[in-house]
C-alpha cells in the first residue's frame, strides 16, 4: 500500500467520540518494545486521571524467533472515566506490529473492533510464518473489523531521515511511532513519554531525539492521515477516592509493602530469593532500596533462599522469601522447619501455570493446596491472597503483622496476572498504617523458649546477642514450655494442638470478608486472589439485572474470616470461581459441608467478566443477555 493510499493528506474534518471506557491491546514481536509502549500508555493515562487496569502477556522465551507466533508479546489496558476492576475481556483496538501479532490476537476481537496494523511487516515470508494463507490485509478475512493500515516502519524511517542512527536502531523506534498514533487517537498528551525517553536514554542523545521524533511523527500522522477519521475521548474518572495516586504493578506493590512493614515495625528486612518467573521483579525491586536498609540475598537455589530467610528471622529480622510454585515445592521442608521452630517467615508465591515448569509467564491460582497442605506432618499455616496489584501492598503488611505477632510462617499468594498488571494506587497516609511494633523478649527471669503468650500463643522471640537467654531451637519436637527435645507422645499431641490453635487465635484477629451485595439471596459467588476484578465486575452486572447475587472475595484463606460460614449458609447456592481445577472449592466443601458449584478456568488467563456473568445466568436459570462491556 502506498503512502497516498494511506491518506497522508491533511483533511481536518475529524470526528470526536466520547467513550466511557476502552480496551486497547498492543502486540508485536517480543523485541518490538510492546511492554514499554503499553507502560507508557498506562502512565500517561493515569496522569490524565483515567481509572485503568493492565495485563501484560509475554512469551516465556526472551527472544523467540522474530515473526513467529510464539514470540508475540502483548500488553492490554482498559482506560475509563469510572471505577473499573479489570483490563477488559476483549480489545476494542488492537495494534498489531506484525502478522504473527495479528494472528495470535485476532481470536480475541469482537466484530467491529479497530485494528491498527504495521503494513511494512506484512511480507510474504512473515505472513507465511504467522500461518496465514495469503495476505489477510488483501483478502476479506478482516472484513468484520475496521482496519487502519499504517506503514509504521517506513514512516518511522522517513521521520528519522536526518538521524545518525543505524537502520536497525531506527527500526527500534517504531514502537514510539505507534504510541504516537494511539496517543492521538485517544487524545493523550505526549509530555510524560517525552520526559521518560529523555531520562531513559540520557546517555545517548541521538536515541533520545530519534524516539521523541518518532513519537511526535506518529502523533502528527494521526492528526493528518485521512484514515484516522475519529478521535476518542475518555475523560478522567470521577468516582474514585480523593487522594494522591501512583501507578503500581503487583510485584512493585509487594516490594513496597514489605519495606513499609519493616519501616513501621522498625525492623530489618531480609529477602532471600532465587530468580524465578514471575516473581523475580520483587527481588529486583527490593534490591533497589538498600538506602532503606533492605538486605537482599540472591541465593544459590530456592532452598538456600528460604533457609537464609529463616536464619535472618532467627537473628531477629523480618525474613522474607519470594518465589513461584516450583520454588515453593523446593522450600517445603524448610517452611516446615520454620513452622516447627515457630519463627516468623513470609513466603510469597507469585503463582503461575503449573504443575512443574508449566506455563511460567501465564497466570493461575493452582498453588492453594500447596500453600495449605504442602508439608510433612500436621502443619497448617496462615495463607493470605492479594486481590489486586495495589492490594499486594496491604497484604504484604498483613502477612508481616501475622507472622511477627503470632510467630509463624505465613504464605502470601499473588499471581502472574496481578503481579505484572498495573493499576492506579492511592498512596496511603503514613499515619493510617497499622502498628507493627515487635517486642523482642529480653527478660531473663522465667524465660523458656516455648513459653507462650496466652492470647496469641506466640513463643518469645529472642534476638541472639541478648545476654542470659542463650537457647536452642530445632526441628525436633520440643517439650511444651521448656523447649527441650521431647519424644513424648502426649507432649507431641499437645504441641500439635497448640500449633493448630494458633490459627484459631489468628481468626479472631482478622477482619470480616467484604460483602458486595446483600447478605442473603440466591447465589453467593466466592473468589480469592487475583480474580477479584473479573468476579466483582461480573457480579455487578448480574446485580444490575436485578439478580440476588452477592460477591465475597477472600483475602484471608487460612484461617477464614469469621463471617464466611454464616454467609455461605445464607444463600441458596454457592459458586466458587477460581483459576484452577477446584482448590478453594474443595476446601469450602470440606470445611462447611456445602454442595458448592465450581467455575474453573485453567487457560493461563484470568476470567473474562462475561464468563462470570454467563455462569451466574446458568446457575440461576436466567437466559443469556446481550453482550456487555465490562
Amino acid at each position: 500500500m502506498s503512502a497516498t493510499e494511506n491518506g497522508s493528506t491533511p483533511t481536518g474534518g475529524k470526528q470526536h467520540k466520547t467513550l466511557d471506557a476502552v480496551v486497547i491491546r498492543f502486540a508485536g514481536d517480543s523485541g518490538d518494545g510492546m511492554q514499554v509502549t503499553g507502560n507508557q500508555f498506562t502512565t500517561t493515562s493515569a496522569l490524565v486521571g483515567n481509572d485503568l487496569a493492565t495485563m501484560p502477556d509475554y512469551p516465556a522465551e526472551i527472544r523467540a524467533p522474530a515473526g513467529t507466533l510464539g514470540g508475540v508479546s502483548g500488553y492490554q489496558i482498559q482506560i475509563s472515566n469510572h471505577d473499573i476492576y479489570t483490563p477488559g475481556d476483549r480489545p476494542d483496538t488492537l495494534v498489531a506490529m506484525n502478522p504473527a501479532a495479528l494472528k495470535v490476537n485476532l481470536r480475541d476481537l469482537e466484530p467491529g473492533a479497530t485494528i491498527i496494523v504495521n503494513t511494512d511487516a506484512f511480507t510474504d515470508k512473515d505472513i507465511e510464518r504467522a500461518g496465514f494463507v495469503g495476505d489477510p490485509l488483501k483478502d476479506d478475512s478482516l472484513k468484520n473489523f475496521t482496519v487502519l493500515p499504517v506503514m509504521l516502519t517506513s514512516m518511522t524511517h522517513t521521520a528519522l531521515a536526518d538521524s545518525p542512527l543505524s537502520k536497525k536502531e531506527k527500526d527500534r523506534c517504531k514502537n514510539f511511532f505507534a504510541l504516537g498514533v494511539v496517543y492521538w487517537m485517544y487524545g493523550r498528551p505526549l509530555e510524560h513519554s517525552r520526559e521518560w525517553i529523555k531520562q531513559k536514554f540520557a546517555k545517548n542523545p541521538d536515541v533520545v531525539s530519534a524516539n521523541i521524533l518518532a513519537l511526535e511523527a506518529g502523533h502528527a500522522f494521526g492528526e493528518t492521515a485521512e484514515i484516522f477519521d475519529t478521535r476518542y475521548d475518555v475523560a478522567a474518572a470521577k468516582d474514585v477516592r480523593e487522594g494522591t495516586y501512583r501507578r503500581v504493578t503487583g510485584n512493585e506493590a509487594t516490594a513496597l509493602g514489605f519495606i513499609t512493614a519493616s519501616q513501621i515495625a522498625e525492623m530489618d528486612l531480609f529477602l532471600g530469593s532465587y530468580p524465578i518467573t514471575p516473581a523475580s521483579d520483587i527481588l529486583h525491586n527490593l534490591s533497589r532500596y538498600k538506602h532503606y536498609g533492605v538486605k537482599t540475598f540472591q541465593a544459590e537455589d530456592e532452598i538456600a533462599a528460604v533457609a537464609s530467610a529463616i536464619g535472618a528471622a532467627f537473628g531477629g529480622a523480618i525474613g522474607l522469601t519470594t518465589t513461584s510454585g516450583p520454588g515453593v515445592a523446593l522450600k517445603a521442608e524448610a517452611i516446615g522447619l520454620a513452622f516447627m521452630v515457630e519463627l516468623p517467615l513470609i513466603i510469597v508465591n507469585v503463582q503461575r501455570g503449573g504443575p512443574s515448569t508449566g506455563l511460567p509467564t501465564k497466570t493461575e491460582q493452582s498453588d492453594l493446596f500447596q500453600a495449605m497442605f504442602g508439608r510433612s506432618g500436621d502443619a497448617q499455616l496462615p495463607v493470605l491472597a492479594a486481590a489486586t496489584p495495589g492490594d499486594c501492598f496491604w497484604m504484604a503488611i498483613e502477612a508481616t503483622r501475622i507472622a511477627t505477632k503470632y510467630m509463624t510462617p505465613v504464605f502470601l499468594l499473588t499471581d502472574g496476572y496481578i503481579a505484572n498488571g498495573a493499576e492506579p494506587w492511592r498512596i496511603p497516609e503514613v499515619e493510617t498504617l497499622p502498628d507493627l511494633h515487635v517486642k523482642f523478649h529480653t527478660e531473663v527471669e522465667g524465660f523458656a523458649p516455648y513459653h507462650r503468650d496466652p492470647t496469641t500463643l506466640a513463643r518469645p522471640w529472642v534476638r541472639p546477642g541478648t545476654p542470659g537467654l542463650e537457647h536452642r531451637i530445632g526441628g525436633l519436637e520440643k517439650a511444651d514450655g521448656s523447649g527441650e527435645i521431647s519424644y513424648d507422645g502426649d507432649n507431641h499431641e499437645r504441641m500439635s494442638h497448640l500449633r493448630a490453635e494458633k490459627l484459631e487465635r489468628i481468626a479472631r484477629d482478622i477482619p470480616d470478608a467484604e460483602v458486595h451485595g446483600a447478605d442473603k439471596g440466591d447465589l453467593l459467588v466466592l473468589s480469592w486472589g487475583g480474580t477479584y476484578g473479573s468476579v466483582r465486575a461480573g457480579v455487578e452486572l448480574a446485580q444490575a439485572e436485578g439478580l440476588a447475587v452477592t460477591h465475597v472475595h477472600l483475602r484471608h484463606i487460612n484461617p477464614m474470616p469469621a463471617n464466611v460460614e454464616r454467609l455461605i449458609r445464607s444463600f441458596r447456592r454457592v459458586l466458587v470461581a477460581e483459576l484452577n481445577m477446584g482448590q478453594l472449592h474443595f476446601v469450602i466443601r470440606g470445611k462447611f459441608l456445602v454442595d458448592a458449584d465450581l467455575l474453573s478456568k485453567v487457560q493461563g488467563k484470568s476470567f473474562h467478566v462475561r464468563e462470570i456473568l454467563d455462569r451466574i445466568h446458568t446457575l440461576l436459570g436466567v437466559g443469556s443477555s446481550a453482550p456487555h462491556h465490562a
Partner: protein
Amino acid sequence: MTTEPISGPTRDDFQSSNHVRWCPGCGDYAILAQVQRTLPELGIPRERFAVISGIGCSGRFPYYMNTYGFHTIHGRAAAVATGLKASRPDLSVWVATGDGDALSIGGNHTMHALRRNIDINILLFNNQIYGLTKGQYSPTSEVGKVTASTPMGSLDRPVWPLSLALGSNATFIARTIDREPKHMVDVLLRAAHHKGTSLVEVYQNCNIFNDKAFSHLTERTSKDAEQLRVEHGKPLLFDKGRKGIGFKNFQAVIIDVEKDGLDGVAIHDEQGPVAYHMAVAELRHPHFPTAIGVIRAVDGPVYDERMTAQIDLAVKKKGRGELKALLAGETTWRVHTTLDA
C-alpha cells in the same frame, strides 16, 4: 565501681545442661570439648555466639553448646547460617556439619558459602560414614565400602572435601583430627580469627560404623610417619623430621632429609597458589602422609562486610530512606473529586 575480679568465660560457661547423647567413644565428644575450650579464648561475649547445624550426628552439636543454637534441616545449615550472618554481622556464627550433611545433601550450600566468603566457621566432621541412619556409605567413603546399602561394596568414588573447597574459591581450609586436641584448638582459633568462610575438616572416628578409619593417623606406632603437620613458613617435614615433601612437575615426592638434606623440601605457604594447596590437601595414605593444620589462609572480600558497605554507600548517596518518599515514588497525580464513602 564494682570490685568483681575481671575473669573471662571458661569452658564450663559453654556447656549446656543437655545430656550429651552421642555413642560412647564417639569422636564428636572430643570436638565438642575443643570447641568449648576455644570459644572462651576469643574475647566474644557468650551471647554473641550462634551454632547452626543440619542433620546427622553432628546435628546435635548446638544442643550441647550453651550459646544461641539452631538445629535445622538436612544439608541447609550453611544456608541458614548465611542468612543469620548477613543480617547479623555482629554475631560469631559456627556451623557444625558432617560429610553427608555438607557434601551430599548440602553440597551446593557448602560450595556457595565458600565462594561468597561470608564470615562463618564451618566445622566438617568427616567420619566417612552415615552414622545416624545406621551405617550407609557416605560421599567421603572409599570405593568398595561394604555397608547395609552396599553389600557388594560401594561403587562411587569419594569427594575430597578440601579439594572441593579449593575449587569453590575458599579462603581458609584446614584439617585436624579428633584425637589431637591441642592441634584442634590451634586450628579452631585460626579459623575463628579468619575473616571470611573457614572450613575445618575434622577427621572423626565413628567407633560404631566405621571404626579405625583414621587409625593410621592416630595410633602411636604410625602417626609420626602418617601425619604431615603443616605450618606457615616451615618446611613440610614428617616422621620426626626425617622426611620431607617436595614437588616435581606438580607431583609430590618424598625426600629423605637425613640423606639428602632440606634441599627440595617445600616451605609451607598458606598464601601460596591454589595448585600448591591442592597438592598438599591431596597427599594421602598409603603413598604419602596426610597434611593436618592450616593449608590455606588468604584474604578475600567478605560477603557480609560488603553487603553492609553497599547499604552504607546507598545511604550516603541517597540519604536514609524515608517512608513518605517510598510510598510516593516518582510519578504521582492528585484526585480531587470525592467519592461518597
